């Protein structure tokens, strides 16, 4: 009865809260006393949090599934660790709201009549034991002493293998037949047992439901209406050894049981949203236990508590958008490109044009005039020819610029835009100069260039000329500088050539290079005696035995 009263109170409190929300949403137009506003503010916040949670859950099925996963993992973790206190703490908060008694959550053994068992008095009368209560069991099997083990084993094997009856059931049949093997096996054979056979359609339906619901056998049972839950569980365990159900699991599917919970917002959010921080009320991922206050808190609240020893104020909570805004910073690899951002973003003042490098023969006005020339005018200027003069060009440019239209309105320039214009203008000017310069050609200079290139080509071709294989007289048309005077070096060389070549004057001239065959002949006529003497001396040296021995030694060494 008290429980119903609590329900009524909670319902009434909900009704009271609704109009205050509406009035708050209306805005400043509503006249509300200051006291009323102060009182209602925390309640509104709480309701807003609840609504936000419910809205998030309703919009997308994804968060509801995500919430179910940590609860499952936390369930295991709680069993393995001391998670009892973390689960119990929300119960205290919920209990405070419900105003009902709750179990003590201390890690202690509780003492009191509410916790200890009431022990009945000892009954020393032994005979009363048999009369107190009947046996609460039914005998399935009791091995008699006179039974034949071999027959028993054969009976069990035949019953279980041939008639597919479980062993304990076969033993029971043997017991009720007073351990008569013949009558027992007859009854086993005659027994028409109602077996739990699954048809192919049912098996297919089970596997399809398993893909959707996983091991939620209550949901699978809704599809297999004629099957009991126990039959479904038993079939699962028997088929598990053949079918690998892990391949069926599709974790992306939504679990409808959890969606049912989210549809109706629970009055005790702490009991359901286990990942919410007890201090700031926000959902957090890294929940840790605050040992001093014995409750789960998020990492930020825990750090604040460790530093200051006081729970973290709720005013320090940051919405996710605020955290993103405060934390966003320029990446390191992009900082280099952002150095001059402020400077380039400033408004243009025209100083860039004045700072540009001006050519010696040009003035600012000339450059400004060139800026307005269309690109087609360059071709016309190129065709003018060499005779055009700079003053004439300037006159033509001015006449063309008068025909152009007015300037188009623009946004305010930045320094960046101005520098871009300067670069474009410089590039156009250089192209114009290149076109102008290209039209002037010096024919004489070109001819001299051609002549030089021809000479270079000839030298390259003559590099591979072998003078020993080609006599000089084949190129008699070449001009060679010959002198009438005979130097001392030339004289000794000619004499040695006579020793080698005899009276062949062309070969000797070719070898010396600086004398014509006629000059060599004249030299021979004038110095015939000296040449003959040198020849005889040369022959005498060749016949000398000592020289021959030296030559043989050289050949041996080689």
């Amino acid at each position, binding site marked *: 009865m008290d429980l119903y009263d609590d329900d009524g109170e909670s319902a009434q409190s909900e009704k009271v809260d609704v109009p205050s929300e509406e009035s708050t949403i209306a805005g400043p137009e509503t006249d509300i006393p200051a006291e009323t506003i102060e009182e209602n503010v925390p309640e509104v916040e709480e309701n807003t949090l609840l609504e936000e949670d419910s809205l998030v859950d309703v919009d997308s099925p994804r968060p509801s599934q995500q919430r179910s996963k940590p609860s499952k993992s936390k369930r295991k973790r709680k069993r*393995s660790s001391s998670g009892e206190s973390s689960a119990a703490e929300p119960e205290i908060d919920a209990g405070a709201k419900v105003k009902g008694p709750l179990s003590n959550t201390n890690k202690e053994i509780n003492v009191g009549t509410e916790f200890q*068992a009431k022990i009945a008095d000892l009954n020393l009368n032994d005979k009363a034991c048999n009369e107190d209560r009947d046996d609460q069991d039914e005998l399935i099997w009791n091995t008699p002493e006179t039974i034949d083990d071999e027959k028993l084993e054969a009976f069990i094997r035949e019953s279980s293998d041939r008639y597919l009856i479980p062993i*304990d059931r076969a033993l029971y049949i043997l017991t009720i037949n007073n351990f008569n093997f013949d009558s027992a096996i007859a009854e086993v054979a005659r027994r028409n047992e109602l077996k739990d056979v699954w048809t192919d359609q049912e098996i297919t339906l089970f596997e399809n439901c398993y893909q959707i619901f996983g091991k939620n056998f209550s949901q699978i049972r809704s599809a297999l209406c004629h099957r009991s839950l126990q039959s479904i*569980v038993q079939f699962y365990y028997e088929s598990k050894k053949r079918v690998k159900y892990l391949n069926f699991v599709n974790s992306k599917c939504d679990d409808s049981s959890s969606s049912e919970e989210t549809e109706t917002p629970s009055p005790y959010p702490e009991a359901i949203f286990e990942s919410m921080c007890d201090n700031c009320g926000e959902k957090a991922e890294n929940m840790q236990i605050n040992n001093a206050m014995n409750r789960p808190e998020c990492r930020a609240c825990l750090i604040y508590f460790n530093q200051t020893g006081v729970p973290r104020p709720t005013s320090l909570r940051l919405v996710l958008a605020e955290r993103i805004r405060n934390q966003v910073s320029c990446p390191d690899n992009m900082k280099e490109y952002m150095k001059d951002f402020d400077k380039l973003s400033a408004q243009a003042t025209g100083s860039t044009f004045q700072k540009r490098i001006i050519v010696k023969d040009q003035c600012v006005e000339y450059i400004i005039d060139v800026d307005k020339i269309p690109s087609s005018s360059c071709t016309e200027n190129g065709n003018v020819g060499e005779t055009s003069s700079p003053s004439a060009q300037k006159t033509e440019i001015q006449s063309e610029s008068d025909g152009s239209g007015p300037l188009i309105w623009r946004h305010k320039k930045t320094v960046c835009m101005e520098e871009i214009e300067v670069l474009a203008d410089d590039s156009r000017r250089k192209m114009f100069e290149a076109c102008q310069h290209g039209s002037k050609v010096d024919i004489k200079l070109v001819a001299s260039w051609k002549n030089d290139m021809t000479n270079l080509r000839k030298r390259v071709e003559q590099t591979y000329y072998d003078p020993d294989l080609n006599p000089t007289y084949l190129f008699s048309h070449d001009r060679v500088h010959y002198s009438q005077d005979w130097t001392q070096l030339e004289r000794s060389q000619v004499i040695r050539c006579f020793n080698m070549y005899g009276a062949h004057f062309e070969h000797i001239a070719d070898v010396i290079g600086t004398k014509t065959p006629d000059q060599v002949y004249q030299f021979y006529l004038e110095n015939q005696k000296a040449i003959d003497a040198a020849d005889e001396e040369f022959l005498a040296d060749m016949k000398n035995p000592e020289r021959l021995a030296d030559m043989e030694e050289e050949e041996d060494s080689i």
Partner: protein
Amino acid sequence: MNSNGPLMEHGKRRVAYYYDSNIGNYYYGQGHVMKPHRIRMTHHLVLNYGLYRNLEIFRPFPASFEDMTRFHSDEYMTFLKSANPDNLKSFNKQMLKFNVGEDCPLFDGLYEFCQLSSGGSLAAATKLNKQKVDIAINWMGGLHHAKKSEASGFCYTNDIVLGILELLKYHKRVLYVDIDVHHGDGVEEAFYTTDRVMTVSFHKYGDFFPGTGDLKDIGAGKGKLYSVNVPLRDGITDVSYQSIFKPIMTKVMERFDPCAVVLQCGADSLNGDRLGPFNLTLKGHGECARFFRSYNVPLMMVGGGGYTPRNVARCWTYETSIAVDKEVPNELPYNDYFEYFGPNYRLHIESSNAANENSSDMLAKLQTDVIANLEQLTFVPSVQMRPIPEDALSALNDDSLIADQANPDKRLPPQITDGMIQDDGDFYDGEREGDDRRNESDAKRAAQFESEGGEKRQKTE
């Protein structure tokens, strides 16, 4: 009557085995580690090993509402009976109050599951009270975390407390031993202030569920010193476990001298369990059962935790074989769930090379502290004596009274003379027919005369 060491059994030990085939068809929920299917796997393994030849197999009746409210509150049992996943929304406050919904989910058939679990333990206790069996096994039970008005740790109704309450009707003192990796807080809390039940728990302590079970928790009121807690660390091995278990339990049996023992064989203290960090093997875990079997005390073995179903089935099958004192081969027999025991299909499991954080110094100090507490116990507490009413027709059972009141001139009735054994040193004429001393046809009598004659001659000389 109690023997402190293993002796050869003078008689066959009667073992009762409680099982209901429906217990395996309940399912806690998707992703939940508690699987009642492990009990069915155990049963199939026990039968296919042929252990039924040494067992008395019983199917227990489900416990009734009145049976379960002998410990649990009416409000709590009404909630368990009424709530199911369909009407979940109307029980939000009760779920918070009774701690149902997270570790202990509401699943279809929850109340029937509690009935079967508690019914098995109640039937086992009743059978022990009637002294029809010596050992009773209920692997369906062992849910030791449930409180009087609260579910806890995958447990809803505490079948152990219900069984002990039944045993206390005809047994003065009951010893409860818990070798689950979690502390048996539900049973300890239920009997925290009584001296008729001693609770001993060997468990992991320190940032582990349920968080209770410190060495200093020794009971309150009349139950002071009757709660024994042995907190252990991770990675305890068989040798370490028995080095702390046997000395403490020997002392407990000596000082407390229980009339009945309840052993909770939670298998999550094995190596390879999904939740437990201990490093026991089947031999180390089964040695605890063998220890209590060596005492000639009524023993009830219940299940408990265990979250790797194939190892749970191995462990409880091995302990069933210990109870019936029959060796089982290491090769598993083929059964309906043979594929679950891959990849090696053997009975015994290996211990891992995890670090044992229980040093011998720590265990020695722990043992010293526990035994110091046990030494302070008053020896063998008893219940206030009450007058025993006289039995009707008691004279019929007293043979000596009949012999004394008999008329010496008449021959004794045959039910008296059939039980008489003639003393060899008796020289007087007896009532036995044909006792004619003068004829001396009895060779036995003649031999005695010769020996007596020899003695007289020696005295004469």
